[in-house]
Structures are given as structure tokens and as C-alpha cells.
């Protein structure tokens, strides 16, 4: 047997799985989004009709779709910078020569990343309970009036953002820490001899050296945060007053609760489009800034 056919034989299982269970469904999803596939079509496929771009058109005129997109953008725009700040801050602390017990602290700070979203979301719901939650108990003791985290549409999303920061910052912390450790010590040595302060060292050595990693990590975090689903599903069930309905939550409801699978597919592709545009724009902006620097 020649080498090339061996290679294809080795590739076959993985390519078959990816083709049948990812590529094919993605293409089918594009087709599905152009039909009125609903519960009647689910019962009898003859009820299926081609509707062109009508699903997309309807979505663009649906208040809840824009609301869901708005909530998701809120989550991304507030959640990503906060997560990145937490990751960078803890990575800097862990990288400091003054820090002791580094492996212990690193493991402790990373622990939430490996936990199950659903399980820790259940804890969160309890911590932020208005009647007997610890968070409001502490706030009251600090003289701050308790907040109805689960019942007030203005506070539900901030609570979910806090959850996401807590759950995810450890991941980027590890990557940034590796980036910090790769910066040559001589650079700091030279800066210190020149009398540069800690802040100036951070501004002129650490940040530029870390910039490519920050950009990559930021883009990955943005695309991850656009896929918000389990948190509102478990903590708030999309409420109160639909204030935490994310795009994927809407897709899930449309597709698997009401069985409007054509509409739900259109929701999925619109989310993909938004994610693609957002990450591309970030990447362009980041690269041109690096070129300028």
C-alpha cells in the first residue's frame, strides 16, 4: 500500500465524524434557515415550504431578537474587559517575585475553570438569593441596601457577568502568566538601572511584550462570550422580564421549545455573522495597532 492511501486511511475516521456531524449539519442548517420547518413539518415533511430569506426578514423585525442581541452584546462588552482585567491582574500577582506558594495560589485561582457550569450556576443562584443569600447579607452589613439580583431586570445581567468573570478568568490567567514568564529579565534589569518606575516598566515593557497574547486571548474570549447560554438557562431562566435572554437562549427556545427550527436556524446564522464581524474587526484593529507601535 502506498503512503498517500495510508494517510487517507488514518484520516478517514476523524474526517467522517467531522463531515457527518459538523460540516453536513452546518450546510443543512443554512438550507433549514430558508424554510418554514416547524412542528407540522416535524410530523410530516410534506408540510415543509421554502421561504427564502423570510425568516431573516422576520427576525430583523422582531423585538425579542434585538433585545436578545442587545443582552448578549452587553454581556460581551462588559464581561470580556472585566474578565481580561481579572486575568491580567492575577497573572501579574502570580508572576511577582514577591509572591509565595505560587503553585497553590495558581491552582486555587484556576479551580473554577474546570468546574461544571451548571453546578456552579446553581451555587450562584443561592449566593445571590435575595432572602437568604450571602451576598445581600454582606451588602446590608456594609450599609448598602440589598439588591434583588434575581428579580430586578437591571441587576440580573450584572450578576451573570460576575459569574462569568469568576468562572472564566483563570483560563486566560494561565496563558498570560506563561507570556509574562517569557519576557526576558534583562529588559526589566536595564529599565531599573535607568530608574524607570514600576508603572513605567509595566507600560513600556510588559504591555508591549504581552500585546499579541492579549489580542489573541481577547478575541477567543469575545467569541466564547457570544455563546452565552447555560448561565441564563440555569440562574435566571432568561428572566426577569426576559432581561437575560441571550441569542442562543432565543435559538434554544425557538428551536427546541416551540419547534420553529427554520427560525431558530436563522437565529444561529445571524449570531455566527455577528461573531464573525466582531472578531474580524477586533483582529484588524489589533494588528494595525501592533504595526503602528
Amino acid at each position, binding site marked *: 500500500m502506498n*503512503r*498517500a492511501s*495510508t*494517510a*487517507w486511511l*488514518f*484520516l478517514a*475516521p*476523524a474526517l467522517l*465524524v467531522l463531515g457527518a*456531524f*459538523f*460540516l453536513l*449539519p*452546518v450546510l*443543512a*442548517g443554512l438550507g*433549514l434557515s430558508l424554510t418554514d420547518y416547524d412542528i407540522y413539518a416535524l410530523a410530516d415533511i410534506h408540510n415543509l415550504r421554502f421561504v427564502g430569506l423570510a425568516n431573516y426578514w422576520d427576525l430583523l423585525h422582531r423585538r425579542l431578537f434585538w433585545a436578545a442581541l442587545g443582552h448578549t452584546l452587553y454581556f460581551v462588552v462588559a464581561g470580556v474587559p472585566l474578565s481580561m482585567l481579572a486575568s491580567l491582574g*492575577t497573572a501579574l*500577582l*502570580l508572576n511577582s517575585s*514577591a*509572591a*509565595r506558594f505560587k503553585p497553590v495560589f495558581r*491552582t*486555587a*485561582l*484556576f*479551580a*473554577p475553570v*474546570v468546574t*461544571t*457550569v*451548571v*453546578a456552579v450556576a*446553581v*451555587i450562584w*443562584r*443561592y449566593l445571590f438569593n435575595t432572602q*437568604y443569600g450571602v451576598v445581600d*447579607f454582606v451588602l446590608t452589613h456594609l450599609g448598602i441596601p440589598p439588591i434583588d439580583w434575581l428579580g430586578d431586570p437591571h441587576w440580573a445581567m450584572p450578576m451573570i457577568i460576575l459569574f462569568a468573570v*469568576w468562572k472564566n478568568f483563570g483560563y486566560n490567567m494561565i*496563558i498570560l502568566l506563561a507570556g509574562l514568564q517569557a519576557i526576558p529579565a534583562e529588559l526589566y534589569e536595564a529599565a531599573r538601572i535607568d530608574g524607570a518606575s514600576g508603572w513605567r516598566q509595566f507600560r513600556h515593557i510588559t504591555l508591549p511584550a504581552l500585546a499579541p497574547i492579549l489580542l*489573541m486571548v481577547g*478575541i477567543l474570549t469575545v*467569541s466564547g462570550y*457570544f*455563546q452565552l*447560554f447555560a448561565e441564563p438557562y*440555569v440562574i435566571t431562566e432568561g428572566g426577569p422580564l426576559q432581561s437575560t435572554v441571550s441569542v442562543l437562549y432565543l*435559538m*434554544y427556545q425557538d*428551536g*427546541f421549545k416551540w419547534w420553529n427550527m427554520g427560525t431558530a*436556524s436563522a437565529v*444561529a446564522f445571524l*449570531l*455566527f455573522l455577528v*461573531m464573525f464581524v466582531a*472578531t474580524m474587526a477586533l483582529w484588524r484593529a489589533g494588528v494595525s495597532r501592533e504595526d503602528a507601535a
Partner: protein
Amino acid sequence: MKPRVSRWLVNAALAACAALVLFPLFWMLSVSFMQPGEANALPPPMLPQIPTLDNYRELFAHAGMGRWFANSLIIATAVTLASLACNTLAGYAFAKLHFAGREKLFDALIGALVIPAQVAMLPLFLLLKYAGLVNTYAAVILPAMASVFGIFLVRQYARTMPVELLEAARMEGAGELRIFIEVVLPLLKPILVTLAVLTFLTAWNDFMWPLIALTGQQHYTLPVGLASLSRQHVQDSGLMMAGAVVTVVPVLVLFLALQRYYLRGLLLGSVKG
């Protein structure tokens, strides 16, 4: 700033962060051992007055937690074994075997990473429905049997393998499959452990797809079961915390035991940019 002061500040900040981060997990554990109703008192108690296993007993006796635990274990193990096989074969082929269009195909796979998995979920559900596989283990296992990330990870690692070893084995007339099993696999062992840990944890924690594909209680995984419990038992904090403990502790223990491998995978996976 004086070195002693800054050392104190850095360590105090780290300790404060760690305490804040671990508090929810600590409290989960503590509340799970409390008597019914005890956790809903004001001020919230930090430790159970008389620790009890009642919540755990209730979960396993009446809520079907044992069944969900077994389901999670079966699915995560099957996904890990199957995807390890598929990804290793493909990753090695991309790294060391020659065929026309190798780089282009690999680039196409990496490019496909921009498509969020949820785009495929609706048609995938219909596909499995027409195949009669909805609400079976296969519905969750089949789509997870290969992953671009896994192929990428194996390829990165396999590329550093010396070609001379493979050539020497070929000179001796060994077949490609034998070379793979006897020469390549032992060399790939560290990355296989890494991939196994990452895959198992991901499969164990996965939520959205199992929620869609497993429609009957008897097939629920732990996260799906826990989510459905939490929608029914909102008031029973002790019970819910015990459920969270049963779900989270296995993955935390696995992570602590194999931390080195896990973190290496995380760092290797992040250099793809």
C-alpha cells in the same frame, strides 16, 4: 516601595483573591451537609451545626442521581476513548504522512473553528431524530468522536518527533499501522494523557447539546439532571448543593491529580494564533 511592604501586599492580595474565588465552592460543600431548612436561615450559617448526609441520600434514593452519574461516566469515557483514537490517527497523519493537499486540508479544518458549534445543532438534532437516535447515549457520543482541537494538539506534538525513527522502521519493512502502534503511540503518550484529560472534562461538563439530545430523565447526564432539578427544587438549597458537589468533585479531583497535563494542553492549544 520597600521590598518587605510590597511582598506583604502581593501575598495579601493573592490570598484575598484565592479566598474570594474558593468561597462559593467551600460554601457549596458546607451547605450540602446541612439539615433541611438550615441553609435558608438569616444570617446564612457558614458551617453545618450537625453535619448530615441526608441530602446525598435523598438525591441518590429519589432523584435518580446515581443513574445520571453512571450516564455521565459512560458518555464521558466513551467520548474520550473514541475521540482519542480518531484524533491521534488524524493528527499523526497531518504531522508525518505525506499526501496531496495536506496543508490545505489542515488549514480548512482550522478555518472551520470560526463556526460556532451551535450552528450545527438544529440540523444535527433532525439528523439523529430521523436515524432514531435521539435520547440515546449515541446522540451525545457520535458528534464528539473527533475534534479539530484534538487533531491540532496531536499534530503539534507529533511534528517534533524525529523522522529518522519512522524511516528506520520503514527500512526494516514494518507496515504503517505497525509503525503507528509500536513507534508512534509510545512517543505520543504525554500528549495523549493531556488530550484524554481535556476531552473527559469537556464531555463531563458539556451542557447544551446533551440538554437537546437527551430528552428522557433516564438518559440525563449530571449537568442536565441538575439543571432540571434546579428548576423544580428552587427552595431546597441543601439538596441542590449536594447535587452540585456530586457533579463538580469528580472533575476537580481529576484536575488536581493530572494538573500538569491539563495545563500543558491549555498552553499548547493557545499558540494556534
